[in-house]
């Protein structure tokens, strides 16, 4: 019974679409986050003078907006995924669920 349900879901093309789309999107976003964070860490490790360069006449440096930028990026990238998953992916999952459980 349970195996049968699994088989029916797997045969549904919408399931294959959901799985492929979400896996790809999740991987790309994970990669983006890693590039931004480890890029930031490597910048700190290898190019301290750049980060300590003044932006203008005042004391503000590149470091402060870049650091704040990483924090904002982290929140925004999470929001992008959640927004898409809660609409597109959930509606696909719901369609599949309706089709196999009827």
């Amino acid at each position, binding site marked *: 019974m349970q195996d049968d349900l699994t088989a029916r879901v797997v045969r549904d093309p919408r399931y294959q679409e959901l799985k492929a789309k979400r896996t790809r999107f999740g991987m790309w976003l994970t990669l983006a986050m890693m590039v931004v964070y480890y890029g930031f860490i490597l910048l700190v490790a290898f190019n301290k003078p750049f980060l300590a360069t003044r932006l203008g006449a005042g004391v503000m440096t590149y470091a402060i907006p870049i650091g704040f930028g990483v924090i904002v990026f982290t929140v925004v990238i999470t929001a992008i995924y959640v927004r898409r998953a809660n609409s597109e992916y959930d509606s696909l999952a719901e369609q599949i*669920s309706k089709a196999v459980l009827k």
Partner: protein
Amino acid sequence: MSRFPLALRQLLTLAALFGVSASIWAAGADLGQAEKQPTNWTAIGMFGVFVLFTFGVTKWAAAKTKSAADFYTGGGGITGFQNGLAIAGDYMSAASFLGISAAVMVGGFDGLIFSIGFLVGWPVVTFLLAERLRNLGKFTFADVVAFRFAQTPVRIFAASGTLVVVAFYLIAQMVGAGQLIKLLFGLEYWIAVVLVGALMMVYVLFGGMTATTWVQIIKAVLLLGGASFMALMVLSSFGFSPEAMFAKAVEVKTGIAAAAGKAPAEAAAQGFSIMGPGGFIKDPISAISFGMALMFGTAGLPHILMRFFTVPNAKEARKSVLWATTWIGYFYLLTFIIGFGAISFVLTNPQFLDAKGGLLGGGNMAAIHLANAVGGNVFLGFISAVAFATILAVVAGLTLAGAAAVSHDIYGVVIKGGKADSAAELKVSRLTTIALGIIAVLLGIAFEKQNIAFMVSLAFAIAASANFPVLLMSVLWKDCTTRGAVIGGFLGLISSVALTVVSPSVWEVTLGNPKGSALFPYQSPALFSMTLAFVGIWLFSILDKSARAKVDRAGFLAQQVRSETGIGASGASGH
């Protein structure tokens, strides 16, 4: 209690091989040794109000806590927004509030680097795990890992991973509570430790997850509110100009350097150094390794993972992480402003300084003194009470996660073969809560004089090296087997602890071995122990030709369908 039998104290201390650490990595999360301050009745009064109010919440929660499911997940009736606040509360510990604002006050931008590391794990949790956890699990993360594997070995591994992480995290929190109460309330160390243990037991025993979650939410709101007020007051005194705030801080730091006898050019350079990276990151390998521990450790902390089972479905699980990430990110921006505010308003005010120019009560008092500077004595009392409430709430969450691992994974599944009745399981979880509470108090007293700076980092490293790889591979890799998961997981667990022991901060500083004799030269083991765990899981899985391996692999398809679609997922409450 502070004259706790010496032999036992030494035994406990020696057994764990931990002591003083000079780890710069952990600098921001350390409450350090504190000097006892005069008794602060305003703070004690405000804390009393908090305790009375949370007892009311616990009484209400107790009426709703009837089954083991209620105890573990609060009946699954928590919304994404509420859960997000609770997760943020679990994460915004007193150590991060006081420690990071103090690190910013001392090092400026370096403090921000530290807090960013704690934040960046959240998107990874969201993209790879949050909804899958919700769809596959019921009460503990072991439910997810053991979905298609042989129950007994996997549960024993997951419970070990949980308890080890919980133990290190608990020690850090209990010692922090004791130091903090000396500072903030002017009471004895042991009183704080016993108080935290006793109050936490009341919340967890009677109110289970419902009370623990609401205590965490209340505290998160108070902490975010208090920190927002402080940041606002700091910014408003500079006419809401960040440039003016930074300029003043640089001026103050330059003045301090000049007063210490530096030549003007050198003093100016030192003053300006807070605007860029300083000595926080030295070698790239330590930096990456430490970054990995923070990033992936978040995805392996049992008390955080457990929170995903308190919401009704995957949609709410995702919303919880988004809210949590938002609040935590906002909180770190606040601590940055608070740290800079402390440079201008605390370091320049002799009222807060001792004869040598250090902060009264120790380095971590930056945020506390700033509260006094911007909001007077009543606000100081408020922030002190919130800081203590923070520890209490985090300890309750940790204890609940530990109790669930023992009662659900070990008693319910391993001993009773999954046939334990709810009442018996509930009883075991309550007994475990009492046991963990007593152990936490004893450990808190045993580690009083130790520098526990590295323990939070160590807890993250273990979570990243043991729990996270097993969780990820079991969910995403179809050829993963029971044998691979258990061997690889234990390799990660043992290697992360062992490498920490032979790293400079424990081997040389704690154990007193000569400088340069540490076998492992880096500050964090995660890069190596995580790799070992993943390779171990992979190797022992592909070599596994047992009959069990066939069952494990055959179960992947059904697991994947459920994790992707939520079809067949258990209601959070299990009814």
